[in-house]
């Protein structure tokens, strides 16, 4: 339907066949805008989140030695001490992140969806896909017990003190 227009010569502004300059200009502009947007996308992930460090000093190691269970409700974990050493079980349910409660018999119970865990944190019932996390413990240079919320360890790992 546009044939007659095309055939009208005065509407034809000469189009350069190989417009390198135009292409380069257009693509560099697109690339620049793309880069700017990419940079802007970096913005929602700050260098540091407004929260305490994930590596938390719990206190001097001596304060945990010999006490079988030390609850740290603020950190959502318990510190256990047995004859082999110290270990930590996270109180965050592996199902959907609720905080589990400790039963009198030493097992754990999640109030949100009914998951149950035994004293070592293994799942005994309910939808939780994994046992409760054992977190890495270490001793800082100034003699404090440090727990790292981001590092999971096996349930048989103990910190010897």
């Amino acid at each position, binding site marked *: 339907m546009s044939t007659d227009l095309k055939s009208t010569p005065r509407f034809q502004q000469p189009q350069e066949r190989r417009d390198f300059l135009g292409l380069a200009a257009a693509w560099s502009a697109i690339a620049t805008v793309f*880069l700017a947007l990419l940079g802007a996308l970096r913005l929602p992930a700050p260098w540091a989140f407004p929260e305490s460090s994930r590596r938390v000093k719990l206190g001097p190691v001596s304060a945990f030695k010999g006490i079988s269970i030390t609850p740290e409700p603020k950190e959502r974990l318990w510190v256990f001490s047995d004859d082999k050493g110290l270990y930590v079980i996270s109180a965050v349910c592996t199902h959907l992140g609720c905080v589990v409660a400790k039963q009198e018999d030493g097992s754990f119970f999640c109030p949100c969806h009914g998951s149950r865990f035994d004293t070592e944190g293994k799942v005994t019932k309910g939808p939780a896909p994994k046992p409760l996390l054992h977190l890495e413990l270490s001793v800082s240079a100034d003699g404090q017990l440090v727990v790292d919320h981001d590092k999971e360890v096996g349930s048989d790992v103990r910190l010897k003190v």
Partner: protein
Amino acid sequence: MMDRPRTYRVGWLKVVLLLSSVASFGMLLLAAYQENFTAEWRTHQQEFAHVLSVKATAANETSAPAGASVKASDYPIEIRQAFLPEWDKVDRCITCHVGIDNPAMQDQPQPLTAHPGDILQHHSADRYGCTICHQGQGRATDKEAAHGRVPFWDEPLLTGDFIQSTCTQCHHDEEVPQAPVLNRGRQLLSELGCVGCHKTGETLAAEKVGPQLDSVGSKVTRKWLHKWLADPGKYLPEHKMPQYPLPSGAIDGLAAFLMTARDDKIDNAPQPKGDYDTGADIYRESQCIVCHVTKLDYADNPVGGHIGPSLMKIGNKINQKWLVAFFQNPHSFLPHTKMPGYHFSKKEAINLSQFAIEEWTDYDLQDAEAEEPALPTGTPQQIALGKRLFAELDCAGCHELKGSPAKRDAPELTFIGSTPVHQLTFGDAKVPRTTPDFLYTKLKSPRSLHHKFELHPGEDPVDAIWENLRPKSLFSASQSLPDGAEGERLAWLLEQAKKAGVLEKQLALPSGTTAKQAHWLVWALNEVGALNPLKMPDFQPSDQDTEALAIALMSLSEVGAPSKRFDAPRRSKTVFDPKDEFGKLERHYRCLSCHKIRSSGELLASDLTYEGNRVNREWLYHYLNQPYSMRRMLTIAMPIFHFPDEESRLMSEYMANVFVDSDLGAAWKRNRDKADAGRGKTLFQAKGCMACHQVNGTGGDVGPSLTTQVPEFPHGTWVGDKLKGEWVYAWLENPQAILPDTIEPNLGLSDQEILDLTAFVLSLKNPQFQKKNNGDDKNNGDNNNGQVKK
């Protein structure tokens, strides 16, 4: 046919687009690079990781336990922070100062080094962050901004001892542990009388630090007073009186006014001549040198205590009549003085004053003064002027004077530490615009922080000069400016300045335009400091004191802990202020000027808090009557007060019964039967006790001799005669627990060893008195609950 459309040339636009796109692209890349790679803290953390791994390797080789056990590659490079929502703070200081809590990093340079001292053990960086104590800008991630040394950040990093000024946010006690400079500064604020004129909130008590002036007219000579007011340093280099640049007219007035404060009883008392030698004996007995500087040593250094004023040259200053009255009852002249009340009879007082006047007169000075013309007595105008000046300068802030109450109208300092810097007046001074610098400079030289007075175009020079003339009292007598031509009014101003003694009598306005004359007058008045409205005197504190004061002022801040939970527990300070008979005696003899009882008093002499546990009453009773020096090293001892018998008995009994802690050395009471003095004697040798303590003339001279010989003392002076077992036991157990600063080492003796040593020490009784006091032997050196023998 139409023309072919001319082609619009679009090529150059493509070039522009291409160039600006490429340039923008580069700019964005540059920004991305800076954002991600150039930050200083990355370098520090990489360095730190490297140091960690080096240390870890070293530790593995020596198989010694070490704090560092991290591989460099394991060490995450990231922003580290202390998140303190309660304080509204996020401190990222530990992003660069990464080794702050790692003792192994003590040998590293900044910023990787460990925090010095053990402060972090009580104030963990996780809980308290850094900027609470150090200030600075915790959120910043580059050095300059984080240290707060950038425009628009009001709290730059505190340096040096200034860090101590932030302790008071949580530590509300008068004394802050581990902040000695702050404590010293606060003490100075009271001692120098700053609180006499400035309000500082409740933290510091206002006390008049200068002498009471009610009878100053009878006390000193007019000539002396005049010279003192003009330049106290000339008379007494270590004086405490601050200086205010006063013109001679003002000094005339003040001296005239103060000379009217007389005591008729003293003036009219007869003045017999005393005996110098008897006076000298009283002087020695009274141990004046403990509190007063009484002589200069070969290097012209003052010898004597600094509790009371120096006595040098008092003969040039004081009327003997006043001194006699003062010796008889010092507390009626100086209610807050630390001077004890001696029981001087009138005769003794006359003799002592005779000694004092003769001993401490600078005769050269006296001769020189005798040649100076006598000063005329003050005119009523001068006296009135002096009274006004006394009020204007608020002398009553430090000096009690009947009829002249203190105004305390100097700028309030309660929150000076948190006043924004731009509200502080720095004047023309070339100092950095920070609060510590302001305070330091202001204290060091108050007048340097002002704009020099200048005439501004458009304002009437005479009005401006008149408004700014200080001290105002010197001029306000002449009511107000007269009308007339400007030249006449300037001449009138000059006349007033001369009349007030601000300018020299012979000065005259230079010829020329009135503008020139006004300019000259401003210059002349500036020269003598009469155009500076500041009233604060110049204390001329030492650099150290200035810093301590500045720190104490910095600590007076509105900024505090966000909740009471952070407040450090107040150490209950047990003030000793009994209202009973003993208290009356204490107030009369001012025991607390030298002794400490609980938390009150000074530690110039022994701490009496557990005196009842320490010594037996018999010995104490005799000691009060006839004190002797405990150590050969010390030449000074307790003054001989000539206590009446009932007083010394009351005091010894009171101390034996009240100054007691039944827990002290309780183990001795339980286990004394197991003690063996023979074994103790061997131990005494084996532990090297004789390095410091003498027994029968052999041994060192650091601690007190255990066999002090005082022949005339009516009771045994050996340690066994004097001390009680419970105290010796407790002392040997841990000397520092009783006297924190003592240099007796804690030898870590076993219980049995302590028992044996105690038994040995108690067995050291003066054989000369053994027979005489036979009846007491059973109880001696032990719980002596019997009555003191009459």
